[in-house]
């Protein structure tokens, strides 16, 4: 535990000596410090020991380099990651496309249902309007419309039209069925 003796008054030179060893001092400062070292045996010994430790460390510590296969191994790992990312990206794109398709189907189904209902109601109104103008000699229709079941008859006609519209929508696969939800 005994470093070379260095006068306590020379403590101020400690960092200077370290910088001198590392070649960090300016020419002027290095010259000034060398003058001091020439005159101070304690600092001279400390400088010699410090420089020797520095050189010993430089020799003792391994100077290793990367193996030649480093770049190839890294490239391989990155390519594997890129491939995995590509698969993930394609899967994400397919999912996104499916979600968009599903949203469109839902939106158009709703719109078709509204349009179908409106069309059905309109058709029912037109039919009722026409039936009220049926000639008086058509006895069957006339009796049905003038009897107490007039509302029932007209409602039945409307229901038949509505069912027809729904059947037409289903036949065109316009309504989303549960099988889409499996994705």
């Amino acid at each position, binding site marked *: *535990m*005994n*470093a*070379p003796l260095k006068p306590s008054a020379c403590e101020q030179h*400690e*960092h200077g000596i*370290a910088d001198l060893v*590392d070649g*960090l001092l300016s020419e002027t400062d290095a010259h000034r410090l060398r003058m001091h070292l020439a005159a101070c045996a304690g600092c001279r010994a400390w400088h010699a*020991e*410090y420089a020797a*430790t*520095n050189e*010993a*460390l*430089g*020799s*003792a*510590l*391994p*100077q*290793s*380099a*990367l*193996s030649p296969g*480093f*770049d190839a*191994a*890294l490239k391989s*790992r*990155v390519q594997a*990651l890129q491939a995995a990312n590509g698969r993930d990206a394609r899967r994400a794109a397919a999912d996104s496309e499916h979600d968009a398709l599903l949203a469109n189907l839902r939106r158009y189904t709703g719109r078709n249902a509204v349009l179908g209902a409106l069309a059905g109601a309109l058709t029912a109104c037109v039919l009722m309007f026409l039936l009220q103008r049926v000639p008086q000699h058509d006895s069957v229709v006339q009796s049905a419309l003038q009897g107490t079941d007039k509302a029932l008859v007209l409602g039945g006609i409307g229901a038949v039209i509505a069912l027809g519209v729904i059947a037409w929508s289903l036949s065109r696969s316009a309504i989303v069925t549960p099988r889409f939800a499996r994705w």
Partner: protein
Amino acid sequence: MDTGIEQLLAEGRHARAFDELVPAFRDRVFRLAHSILRDRAAAEDAAQETFVRIWKALPGFDGRAALGTWIYAITRNTCLMEIRKRRPAVSLDDPDADEAHHVAAAASVGPGADPERDNLLRLLETLPRNQQEAVRLFYLEDRSYVAVAESLGMPLGTVKNLLHRARKRLMELAQPTHEERAA
């Protein structure tokens, strides 16, 4: 060097930036990993892992820190995680555990052809971890304070101080004791 890479990153050309980044930084990353892990093979593995992490994180690099600072921070984190994996029950912040590690590491420096070199490496293992890393990196980095400061993410003055204290301590430890001298 970094400017061209950062320009590529700013343009969103991450793959090209990565291709240029690897040869520019691989040796420094490896040397930093080697100074922390003290094992060549482990350092190479850590360097690989570091670059894989960089590849994944590159799109998120926002340029707030210098590219080198960012890369060396990832390297240090990768190495620290590697150390934690090796010693899962020991906290890196626990000074007692660190001391125990030093003793174990010192004992692990086996006999070689050069007893003085072995002794110096054994003594180096007894220094605090930050001093050891600074010393190892300093000699790996061809005695460049600037490179060490960049790699460790420390101010230049801190690195100089760490190195000076480490070399001074090694100098003291290497001196024969009174008893050894008398013998």
